[in-house]
């Protein structure tokens, strides 16, 4: 399945200033019974977002009407815990194209990239400034240049991404297509170790 091509993004964002947000919070296990990738966005952060009767919790950021956009800004160590890709599907399904934090868990980072969601690692200071700004503030994420800008104060930081993954995101390429294209080399490897 080809992923969406990533283009430069200017967007308001949802701030979630909580550290160590684990994948059980992003998508609780009871929602993992599906056999397709659709519909997970509705249950993103389900236990923080809804009361037990299913009504929205007014004080949770995703339910506050003043917050909009396709960027999630979260506290450090976002996505720790389970390897469930359902977490990335939920983030993507809600409409996020970028997640910004000062630190990400490894598996979540890989899963996000495989779904065309860009994890952007920034400094603690840059993160604190984003949390401090108002709901109308925007970030500009330029993947080609590997930069993120806080429009409130004009500060820009560079972020890391390996050139292979960057190329995949910019062009909507998919790892599985790549692996299938090198199957001959995989078979040669297998024959070499037998």
């Amino acid at each position, binding site marked *: *399945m080809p992923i969406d091509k990533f283009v430069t993004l200017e967007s308001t964002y949802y701030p979630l*200033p*909580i*550290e*160590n947000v*684990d994948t*059980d*919070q992003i998508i*609780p*296990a*009871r929602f*993992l*019974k*599906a*056999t*397709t*990738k659709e519909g997970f966005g509705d249950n993103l952060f389900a*236990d923080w977002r809804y009361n*037990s009767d299913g009504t929205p919790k007014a004080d949770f950021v995703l339910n506050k009407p003043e917050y909009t956009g396709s960027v999630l800004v979260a*506290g*450090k*160590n976002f996505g*720790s*815990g*389970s*390897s*469930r*890709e*359902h977490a*990335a599907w939920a983030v993507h399904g809600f409409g996020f194209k970028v997640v910004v934090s000062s*630190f*990400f*868990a*490894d*598996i979540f980072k*890989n*899963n996000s990239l*495989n*779904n065309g969601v860009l994890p952007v690692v920034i400094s*603690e200071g840059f993160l*604190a400034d984003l949390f401090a700004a108002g709901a109308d503030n925007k970030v500009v994420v330029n993947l080609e240049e590997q930069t993120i800008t806080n429009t409130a104060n004009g500060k820009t930081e560079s972020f890391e991404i*390996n*050139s*292979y*993954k960057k190329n995949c995101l910019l062009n909507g390429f998919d*790892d*599985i297509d*790549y*692996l*299938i294209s*090198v*199957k001959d*080399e*995989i078979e040669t*490897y*297998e024959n070499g*170790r037998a």
Partner: protein
Amino acid sequence: MAGKTLFDKIWDMHEVKTIEDGPSVLYIDRHLVHEVTSPQAFAGLKDRGIKVFRPQNTFATPDHNIPTINQHLPIADEVSRFQVDTLTKNCEENNVTLFGLGHPKNGVVHVVGPENGITQPGMTIVCGDSHTSTHGAFGSIAFGIGTSEVEMVLSTQCIMQPRPKTMKINIEGELEEGVTAKDLVLYVISKLTTGGGTGYFVEFAGSAIRNLSMEGRMTVCNMSIEMGARGGLIAPDEKTIEYVKGREYAPQGADWDTAVAKWKELYTDADAVFDKEYNFAAADIEPMITYGTNPGMGIGITQNIPALETVEESSQTTYLKSLEYMGYAPGEAMIGKKIDWVFVGSCTNGRIEDIRAFANAVKGKKKAEGVTAWIVPGSHQVEDQAIAEGLKDILEEAGFELRQPGCSACLAMNDDKVPAGKYSVSTSNRNFEGRQGPGARTLLASPLTAAACAVTGVITDPRTL
């Protein structure tokens, strides 16, 4: 040139190719599959019109989403049943070995792999489950992957993976009586925090690790993901070889001798350099318990919950949110706090030694009134052995029920959910908010501590039982 770490040796043997400033194409020896993280991957193969590339290297078992009672009946929850049936259908269509519900080899995927000899030293092993790190106990590179990666392995037996950095965690000395592998790993995580291992693959070493049984080593490697590490591994030794020998999928005859000769080369060279090293003393470790909502929030059972001032200022809001969820206050003692639930099981502590330790500790005692206890074996083989050893009888005499195998209340995907607000002493691996059911409060501990709490109804030091 400096020597190589064990991790580097295994990784290098499995690299099909590397992409400049990108990931490696890594060949996978064993792909373990369960019902929750595989259906979308099999669907992806179908969309591409391809079948599983190397079905003989792929083994499946349903575990996350199955009931732990009445397994002979159809699964009552329709959605769960459909997911389990989908796994069966996908395995049939692709010629993948399946240990389905009711099969004598069914169980938690990370218990099933080792006990059938599917897990072997020097292998690369993946599964769409973060606790795949368990298999590192055999000196293999084993790690959890997402569903897109499951699809990669199903379709090409390879994965695209950036090479992690290496870390060595050395633990020397002897563990005190009543202190287990679980306490050891909870202690290490409490020192490193849940992000301390992120970006690294860990080798556990030192006399305290060597002295652990294979099952204890599995408990340690299982939880390496809880410090953020990609995985953890332990160099194979005689204990490892002895454990693997004779198991159904282990090499046999002349192949066995060849395999053992190769496995004996699996160690970190004396002059190898790790990117990071930690040293701990086994004597400093006491029985551990967690008080918060991530596995790094653990303390020795006799200690108090850390005061707010000891927490970094920027993390204090998160810290207080976590304690509020738990219904605890900074500075409080853990000993003597009331508990409602006990769960013994999971890929962390659901093996025979764990059931044995719990049963021996409660032998001749009675489950405390008001405590609900679920004792869930990690597999049918564990269940059968527990019955054969008379452990089931001991448990029943003490008021405990041995259930049927599955992941159960570790992640509460099935009906085994702890009610909101209740305190559950659990031998599993995660104390995240809602992990054992919406609103449930989890205290991670060893099977011995779980036993001490189960018979007293309050948090109890197992050394005083």
